[in-house]
């Protein structure tokens, strides 16, 4: 969270500089910031509630069974799928992953889960399509999904 404060500090410093240099431009910048935010806010809010519901439905014991050490590539695929469709803030995701490992999940499977969780976003696809178009958004997510299998493979070799 310290990082968030660094970003705040930078933003405030830049904002003060901007206001001293040119108040009109600064006002315009803030207006643009607000418009961009308000524009995307409904989707953000929906995503956040949906993510909350999904995370509550997840059950660590159950997941650990599905993606256990013996689950092989089927487990990796399952883990990558779960990572793709869920949206979990990083500060929850990493402790959750550690918990899953303790509950018997395999390290390759966790690699696939973390990788797809961070790079693939099924829930956020509508936002992505708005800015990148359908084709790029779909391909990007598919590539990232495939990449999580590579991560699983290498993590399995390195960490097993």
């Amino acid at each position, binding site marked *: 969270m310290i990082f968030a404060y660094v970003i705040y500090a930078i933003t405030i410093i830049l904002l003060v500089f901007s206001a001293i240099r040119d108040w009109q431009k600064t006002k315009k910048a803030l207006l643009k910031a607000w418009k961009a935010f308000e524009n995307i806010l409904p989707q953000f809010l929906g995503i956040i509630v*949906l993510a909350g519901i999904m995370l509550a439905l997840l059950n660590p014991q159950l997941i650990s069974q599905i993606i256990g050490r013996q689950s092989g590539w089927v487990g990796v695929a399952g883990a990558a799928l779960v990572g793709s469709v869920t949206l979990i803030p990083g500060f*929850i995701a990493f402790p959750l992953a550690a918990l899953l490992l303790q509950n018997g999940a395999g390290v390759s499977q*966790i690699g696939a889960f973390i990788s797809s969780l961070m790079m693939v976003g099924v829930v956020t696809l509508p936002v992505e399509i708005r800015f990148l178009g359908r084709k790029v958004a779909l391909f990007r997510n598919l590539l990232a999904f495939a990449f999580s299998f590579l991560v699983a493979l290498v993590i399995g070799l390195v960490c097993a």
Partner: protein
Amino acid sequence: MRIKIKGLQRYLFFALTLLGLCALILFQPAVGRKAWDVTLYSLKEMLLVIPPIFVLLGLLDVWVPRQKMIRFMGAGSGLRGILLAYFLGAAAAGPLYAAFPIVGVFMKKGVSFRNILIFIGAWSTLKIPMFLFELSSLGVRFALTRLLLNIPGILLMSLILFSLLPAAEVQALYAKAEEMDE
């Protein structure tokens, strides 16, 4: 201005998720309670992390001239543009979906599509605070292996994606970004 016309309809998705949350709280109080907590937590995270991102976006839009942005990160920016895209993504904070509005401004400013893809990749999985968190939760080996895979992986995926997309389609995306905020 078509934003205004759509009005409340934009909140339909949010309303549906809220309805789902209410149903969960009513019929599965334990799960609903957890969902409510996580939602509140994420909401707080969003309200903490996201406002400065949008203010920076506004400042970038107003102050950095298109010519300068093209020079630093445009089609001819070479290795410097690539490194800058990596750095900006990794230095970011906030969830991936917050990166997309920035991508819109990048397009308006003439950042090359390849660099935009690298920026998204870096934002999604190279964020420095996240790496530190991964390190402490899952260990040095795990975090470092992923980092060393991700750095070339992001470039590779960006190049594949870039080569798959015809130039005309990229141009269409840029044209769409141009008209997005006015």
